[in-house]
């Protein structure tokens, strides 16, 4: 698991740079591993940039507090595993696995999430085109059907979790999956578009009316990023 994370995050850094993050120097430094440590990536837009669909306050807490906590938890789990490994204490290392999965997953999921969102005044919203549109039409029937199915999946999450548009590596087809808590998408699937369905993602603005959040978020989906992930795999 740890080696997977170490491979995954530099790839994210590349994607962030490609998306033209304005704070280039900071983004490069902050998203790379310093001696194997994960760091919080800069957002590719301002905290207020997704308003009115996602409030600036939510974005700031979500990024600067929640995501930072996953980064810290991941580093602490990696450190514990490293120390246990150097002592040959594999039992200790194994007991840290759930924390590694949770915080590592939290770091990966949020890093993907920030990138697959964009301001409605910029790249956000609308509908995909090109090869991605063709694939969605062919695997879901239509974009509207896909969006309705994704919203149903999101509404059906019992507790905290995520819904993802994924590509099956072997078959090349698109599908929808949900993941509990911070479980990352893995195995045969490549994550293309993730929506955070934890209450912290919407509660300050939408309270218990989560269906309104699930409707609004389509205004800030960055289809360019999603298409890039689709074409790269």
């Amino acid at each position, binding site marked *: 698991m740890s080696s997977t994370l170490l491979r995954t995050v530099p790839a994210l850094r590349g994607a962030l740079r490609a998306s033209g993050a304005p704070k280039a120097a900071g983004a490069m430094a902050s998203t790379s591993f310093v001696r194997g440590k994960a760091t919080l990536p800069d957002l590719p837009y301002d905290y207020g940039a997704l308003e009115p669909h996602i409030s600036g306050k939510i974005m700031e*807490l979500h990024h600067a507090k*929640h995501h930072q906590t996953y980064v810290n938890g991941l580093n602490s789990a990696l450190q514990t595993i490293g120390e246990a490994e150097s002592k040959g204490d594999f039992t200790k290392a194994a007991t840290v696995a759930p924390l590694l999965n949770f915080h590592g997953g939290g770091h990966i999921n949020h890093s993907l999430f920030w990138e697959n969102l964009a301001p409605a005044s910029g790249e956000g919203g609308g509908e995909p085109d090109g090869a991605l549109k063709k694939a969605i039409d062919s695997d879901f029937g239509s974009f509207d059907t896909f969006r309705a199915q994704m919203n149903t999946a999101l509404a059906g999450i019992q*507790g905290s979790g995520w819904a993802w548009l994924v590509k099956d590596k072997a078959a090349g087809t698109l599908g929808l999956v949900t993941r509990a808590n*911070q479980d990352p998408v893995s195995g045969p699937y490549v994550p293309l578009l993730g929506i955070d369905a934890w*209450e912290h993602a919407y*509660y300050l603005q939408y309270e*218990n009316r989560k269906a309104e959040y699930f409707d609004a978020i389509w205004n800030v989906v960055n289809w360019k990023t999603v298409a890039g992930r689709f074409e790269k795999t």
Partner: protein
Amino acid sequence: MVNIGSLWQYLALHSTLSGDSTNTNNTANNLAKMGLAAYTLPALPYAYDALEPHISAQIMELHHARHHQAYVTNLNKALESHVAAVAAGDVAAQIALQQVVKFNGGGHINHSLFWKNLAPAGSEDASVAQAKGLVAEIEKTWGSFDGFKTAFSAALMGIQGSGWGWLVKEAGNGAGLRIVTTKDQDPVVGGDVPVFGVDMWEHAYYLQYLNGKAAYVENIWNVINWRTAEERFAGRSEEKTEL
């Protein structure tokens, strides 16, 4: 504990339904025709602002009038749909509905227990002196009351995602106390008696504490209803912990 098995058996005996189920009244009527009372939202035993400053009135109102109400509404709807699925011989739908019943039934039970095991800070009920028998057993189990609080708080902080922390009295004769956590809306099962529970879903604290859940966990101790806890521990409570 949600005794789903016997609920299914009971429901299987009732097969006719009429009318649509697009609103709550029809759901209640349909359940009534089958001799089943629809579940209803219990009143809070205190005002929405009674737990201030530890839990804000805004949180309490949304939590009770919206979240808990949604569990009750969706539980009733799922029961009604289940009866229709039995009537139609739709086994796949019945299986799918079991999870919906478990989730919403668990949400209803958990929140009903939670409201009653809270009390305004400084009130008689919120005094540990109300739980002499329970505290003696806690000290026996964890060495000290503070030791228990530390262990319980750590269990709450360790929950990954949505869930609950519970102090339970284990099933069986002479069984002791134990701290358990349950995920999402899973209820306490296996005959263990919930003594008190703490809701660790983000909706339970976010509007007031934001990401600072450690502060919520610290403050919840001010509003635990130790009289209720003692009654549940001593087996004097008449509350239902099953559907």
